[in-house]
């Protein structure tokens, strides 16, 4: 595990290996450096995705043409979706923070397959660049939406094939990361770390990794079949050739709904790490939270057809999938209940990571409850394909996973880089972001309920007030994002230097490594004797309080 030689007992940021400079990073097999590579590339893609989203909202500020034509608008929402989903939210937590912290939190020196890990990043970059290149190739940017629904994705003359192949390659990157994580968790845990002594972030990554391994191949083969349909007219999905477009929707959502849980589960893991640390209490219901991750991964894989209630399914299947959709809310609710119970009577410190974690709980709860509304068959028919769905999705994915990623950034940034950001600015950024987020997405619930369809370029005048509010919200949200990111990146150069190992008084293993961590993470191989959230020494039981009063 830890090496006795001096050359590896230096920060991973300073380590000089076979290569130096840029090559020392892009050819590094160190899990921490690969995590940082993902962070940088993900931030670049996120900036592009936000830009498309901003332009889309600007176009919708008034009815009719505002800044772009309808075709360009279609490309905007397609690229916004593809980039945000495949290049930001899916890799966000597992690839960045999972890569960086999974081995450390289980007491390992690296992941099980370091070279495969680097290959995952290279595939991610190749897939990402191909998605971006598809915008500029002759034929025009893809305009199918991120769902590539048949028959339009077979008919359109835009660059759908490069986008499909990009998603296929990104899928491989995701599978390899998942495989690496499953094997790492099984094989490389430190002595004494049983499954029930693993931090809850690891449980969530483990559950996520299984979905990545099992569900991603289905989307891979489905996307290749669409390529085959476009190039060879084989007649699998295209109704004009005797194919079945609903089969495409089934196969697409068999992956893409579990993918939502690939996105949200690690964020739930982050919240499970932050809540006990900033309330200085043992997590309430550890096993329930751990098993609810597995339950979400399992049940979440069986609810895909609730995206298709209006697509022409059998009545029996609709009832089955509606029931399964209601069931998956139970483990999610268990988690929320346990987080709130952990906070109860805790010594709460409202530092930036906790604010973002609380933001997650609040926004995810709104997203979750509105998801239940859609799970009911009758209501679903009313709001299907309206902006209500867009609002729900963004509350879960951005309000949930996005805020989870931001929480992770504020929680682990000092450990990763040895620099502390300005906490006052971070809190300001949070509140601006929170207000902007709600102003941007809440009006979409209202106008969707009133009948505003999603993805429409133009709309009736009665919807303008909601669109106006939403667009103004996007400006506030972007201001919040700028405050947050400038603060974080400024800290890398000008932030207060952090050298102590445990700045948040955490109990998990990453807080017993040097700051920033050494190349092989630990000075000595750790041995685990207790659970990850043993805050009992800080808690005063009611009996003790009574005794003190007496």
């Amino acid at each position, binding site marked *: 595990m830890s090496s006795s030689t001096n050359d590896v007992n230096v920060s991973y940021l300073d380590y000089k290996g076979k290569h130096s400079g840029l090559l020392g990073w892009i050819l590094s097999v160190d899990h921490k450096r690969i995590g940082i590579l993902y962070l940088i590339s993900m931030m670049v893609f996120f900036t592009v995705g936000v830009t498309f989203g901003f332009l889309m909202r600007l176009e919708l500020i008034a009815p009719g043409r505002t800044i772009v034509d309808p075709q360009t608008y279609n490309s905007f929402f397609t690229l916004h979706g593809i980039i945000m989903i495949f290049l930001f939210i899916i890799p966000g937590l597992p690839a960045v923070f999972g890569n960086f912290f999974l081995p450390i939190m289980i007491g390992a020196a690296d992941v099980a397959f370091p070279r495969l890990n680097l290959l995952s990043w290279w595939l991610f970059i190749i897939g990402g660049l191909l998605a971006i290149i598809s915008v500029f190739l002759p034929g025009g940017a893809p305009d199918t939406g991120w769902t590539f629904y048949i028959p339009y994705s077979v008919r359109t003359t835009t660059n759908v094939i490069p986008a499909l192949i990009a998603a296929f390659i990104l899928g491989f990157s995701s599978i390899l990361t998942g495989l690496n994580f499953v094997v790492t968790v*099984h094989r490389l845990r430190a002595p004494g770390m049983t499954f029930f002594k693993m931090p809850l972030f690891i449980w969530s990554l483990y559950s996520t990794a299984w979905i990545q391994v099992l569900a991603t191949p289905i989307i891979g083969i489905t996307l290749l079949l669409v390529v085959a349909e476009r190039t060879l007219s084989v007649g699998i999905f295209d109704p004009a050739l005797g194919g079945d477009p609903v089969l495409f929707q089934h196969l697409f959502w068999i992956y893409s709904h579990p993918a939502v849980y690939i996105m949200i589960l690690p964020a739930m893991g982050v919240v499970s790490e932050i809540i006990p640390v900033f309330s200085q209490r043992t997590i309430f219901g550890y096993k329930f939270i751990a098993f609810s991750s597995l339950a979400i991964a399992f049940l979440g894989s069986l609810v895909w057809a609730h995206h298709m209630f209006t697509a022409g399914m059998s009545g029996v299947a609709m009832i*089955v999938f509606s029931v399964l959709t209601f069931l998956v809310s139970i483990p999610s609710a268990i988690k929320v209940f346990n987080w709130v119970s952990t906070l109860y009577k805790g010594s709460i410190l409202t530092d930036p990571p906790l604010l973002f974690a609380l933001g997650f709980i609040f926004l995810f709860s709104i997203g979750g409850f509105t998801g239940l509304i859609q799970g009911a068959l009758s209501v679903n028919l009313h709001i299907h394909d309206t902006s209500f769905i867009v609002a729900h999705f963004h509350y879960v994915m951005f309000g949930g996973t996005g805020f989870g990623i931001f929480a992770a950034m504020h929680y682990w940034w000092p450990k990763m880089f040895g620099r502390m950001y300005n906490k006052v600015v971070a809190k300001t950024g949070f509140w601006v972001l929170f207000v902007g987020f709600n102003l941007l997405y809440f009006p979409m619930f209202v106008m969707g309920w009133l009948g505003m369809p999603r993805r429409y370029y133009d709309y009736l005048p009665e919807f303008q007030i909601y669109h106006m509010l939403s667009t103004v919200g996007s400006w506030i949200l972007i201001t919040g994002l700028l405050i947050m990111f400038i603060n974080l990146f400024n800290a890398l150069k000008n932030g207060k230097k952090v050298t102590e190992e445990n700045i948040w008084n955490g109990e998990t293993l990453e807080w017993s490594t040097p700051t920033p961590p050494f190349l092989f993470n630990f000075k000595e191989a750790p041995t685990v004797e207790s659970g990850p959230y043993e805050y009992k020494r800080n808690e005063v039981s009611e009996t003790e309080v009574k005794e003190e009063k007496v």
Partner: protein
Amino acid sequence: MSEHNTNDHKNHDHGYGHYILIWFALLILTGLTVAVAGIDFGNLTIITALAIASLKSFLVLKVFMHLEVEKRVFTVFVYTSLFFLTVSLILLFSDYSFLQG
């Protein structure tokens, strides 16, 4: 085969005869797939094709991929994956069966 140690795979040399036997079995099953492809079993057509394919996969996994001599955890992983796939297929095809019915 019963002599195999399940905790390491030093002793999983079956000899060529065993592998050739499995190969013949796979060829026969492939022939069966082709033979039944022309017969209309109605709703059972897909189930028949998948059953033969599953049997072939089972033989490949068990023998050629050495699952029979690997640690138990690998078997659990593979069967978990197969369980997931089976449940997905059942849900998927139940929709189509009820549509046709």
